[in-house]
């Protein structure tokens, strides 16, 4: 497994990072936070052709995506926290991304301006109108260079389509439609149309007292524009084909692993709830994250995952304390690397884990200030579950459960990763040589 070298650290000014996403080339990295802000970083590549290439990410654009709102009918505040950001594939000079809070999705256009017009006939450079009598000649205004300005403007607002809290958005491979999912429903949108969406999944029971399951995440297949999956609080993933019917309440495939009866406890249901689902880049596999593990599923096999990785098995005996301090409700995300050979997810104490599928190796690393020296190789960490603690190991009881890594992202092509602790963003790069 590669060595991970620390590259950069950035602080969000005391607001909690709630989502992290690379764009399709990896040149841009977007973060959303609890205050409704989006910050985009751009990769500055130093001599990519050289073997010791090192890339830096600098702040490219910052804007306020969502503001707090109030639902007067229900007397509820609508949080401005950004739940998800998804980039659209680039079609022209501008970049587009979708950002969503609990209720409203917005399409943002991020564009560069590095020229400005100069030489107007009727007004001065500072904008004051010229006295018409003083104009004796006519000229054509020209564009002159200016300092680069990055502008973000909201191009579409997709509102009022979700009764419950939005947990996912996913752009379709047709680049024209996208889905948004809340606890009970999934809607299909066209990027150009904001006043209408189609409901494609509805699991709300006629009698809410019979509710046993909610939708926790949803994603379109990376290549098949008719296929999407959604995960549930019961640990079930359903794959749906939109060609079968307009309302995809009946799944095409259902992925579920039978529960191990020896692991049954008060909290079995909570820890089997899936917090994230991600297709592999190939489209052949999908990965799910539940509280204690990461599972890789082959889309051709529904009855069990092909691989299971325990993220922090030492927490299984601590579930009661984790229930009391609310940590058991934490929703960890997971991600694939560019060629689907490694998967990554976060844990507590600012630890995050990588599992190399092909080499059957895994490592636990830490994102912290102590490791912040530039170009320092990260040291693998180990947690001691019980018994004699070796040197350099950390015991389970001294883990800091307030320091959690919920959001991670992997560059689509290179071995560059973005890891978000509570209010710090760390970018690490694989050490070459």
């Amino acid at each position, binding site marked *: 497994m590669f060595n991970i070298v620390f590259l950069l650290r950035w602080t969000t000014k005391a607001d909690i990072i709630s989502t992290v996403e690379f764009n399709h080339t990896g040149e841009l990295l977007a973060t959303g936070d609890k205050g409704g802000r989006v910050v985009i970083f751009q990769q500055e590549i130093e001599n990519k052709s050289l073997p010791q290439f090192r890339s830096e990410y600098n702040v490219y654009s910052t804007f306020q995506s969502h503001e707090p709102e109030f639902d007067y009918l229900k007397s509820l505040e609508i*949080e401005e926290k950004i739940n998800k950001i998804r980039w659209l594939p680039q079609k022209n000079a501008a970049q587009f991304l979708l950002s969503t809070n609990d209720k409203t999705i917005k399409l943002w256009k991020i564009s560069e301006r590095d020229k400005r017009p100069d030489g107007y006939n009727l007004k001065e450079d500072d904008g004051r109108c010229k006295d018409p009598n003083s104009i004796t000649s006519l000229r054509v205004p020209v564009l002159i260079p200016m300092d680069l300005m990055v502008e973000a403007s909201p191009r579409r607002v997709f509102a009022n389509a979700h009764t419950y809290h939005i947990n996912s958005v996913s752009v379709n491979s047709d680049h024209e439609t996208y889905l948004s999912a809340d606890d009970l429903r999934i809607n299909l949108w066209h990027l150009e149309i904001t006043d209408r969406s189609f409901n494609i999944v509805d699991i709300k029971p006629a009698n809410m*007292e*019979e*509710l046993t399951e909610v939708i*926790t995440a949803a994603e379109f297949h990376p290549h098949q524009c008719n296929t999407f999956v959604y995960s549930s609080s019961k640990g079930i993933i359903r794959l749906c084909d939109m060609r079968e019917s307009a309302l995809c309440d009946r799944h095409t495939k259902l992925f579920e692993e039978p529960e191990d009866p020896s692991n049954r406890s*008060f909290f079995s249901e909570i820890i089997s709830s899936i917090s994230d689902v991600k297709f592999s880049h190939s489209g052949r596999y999908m990965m799910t994250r539940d509280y204690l593990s990461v599972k890789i599923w082959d889309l051709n096999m529904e009855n069990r995952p092909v691989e299971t990785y325990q993220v922090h098995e030492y927490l299984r005996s601590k579930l009661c304390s984790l229930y009391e301090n609310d940590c058991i*409700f934490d929703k960890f995300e997971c991600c694939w690397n560019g060629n689907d050979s490694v998967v990554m997810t976060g844990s507590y104490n600012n630890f995050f884990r990588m599992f190399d599928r092909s080499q059957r190796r895994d490592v636990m690393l830490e994102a912290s200030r102590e490791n912040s020296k530039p170009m320092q190789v990260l040291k693998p960490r180990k947690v001691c579950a019980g018994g004699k603690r070796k040197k350099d190991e950390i015991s389970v009881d001294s883990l800091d459960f307030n320091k959690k890594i919920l959001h991670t992202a992997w560059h689509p092509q290179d071995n560059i990763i973005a890891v978000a602790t509570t209010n710090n963003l760390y970018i690490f790069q694989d050490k070459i040589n």
Partner: protein
Amino acid sequence: MSFATAMEVNVEARRILAVSISKLYASRSQRGGLRLHRSLLLSMVMRSARDIYHSSRESELASGEQPAAEEPMDTNCDPKEKARLAPEPADSSADMAPEVPDKDESDCDVAEDKENHSPTKQSRKRRGKASAAPDFLPSKRARLEPGEERYAAPPGSCRAGLGDSLSALSLNQVIPAF
């Protein structure tokens, strides 16, 4: 399972119930409103804990009389189960538990009843033993169509069987548009 271990399970179940109730209560004032997913998970944990608690209680009361109106009230705390035909089996590890003081259970049940929260149904009515509305409140009764008769809901029977659930619902509960 040994006597001591069964007792521990019972105590644990009660503790988890208490913790869950306080979490449900706290989630009321959460910014952004009640989270359906979280509330659902909380109610599942509460149900598991309650099932274990009651299975041990029932075995202990095998010789004694049934606790009266406390049973029905208890069910209200998890309204999702009201119409459920087959409640999930209790944790198989729960065994015959030793005597649990009556007072504790009624406290627990009344406490649950006070914090009568569910993400789905936010009835503001206290379903206590006196389930009839106080005198000073206007009587909220549905207008009857010609030929209809008014059915009286038996007091305290908030745990409606499937058959009379509708009539009990209309008199005692407010189902919000959700």
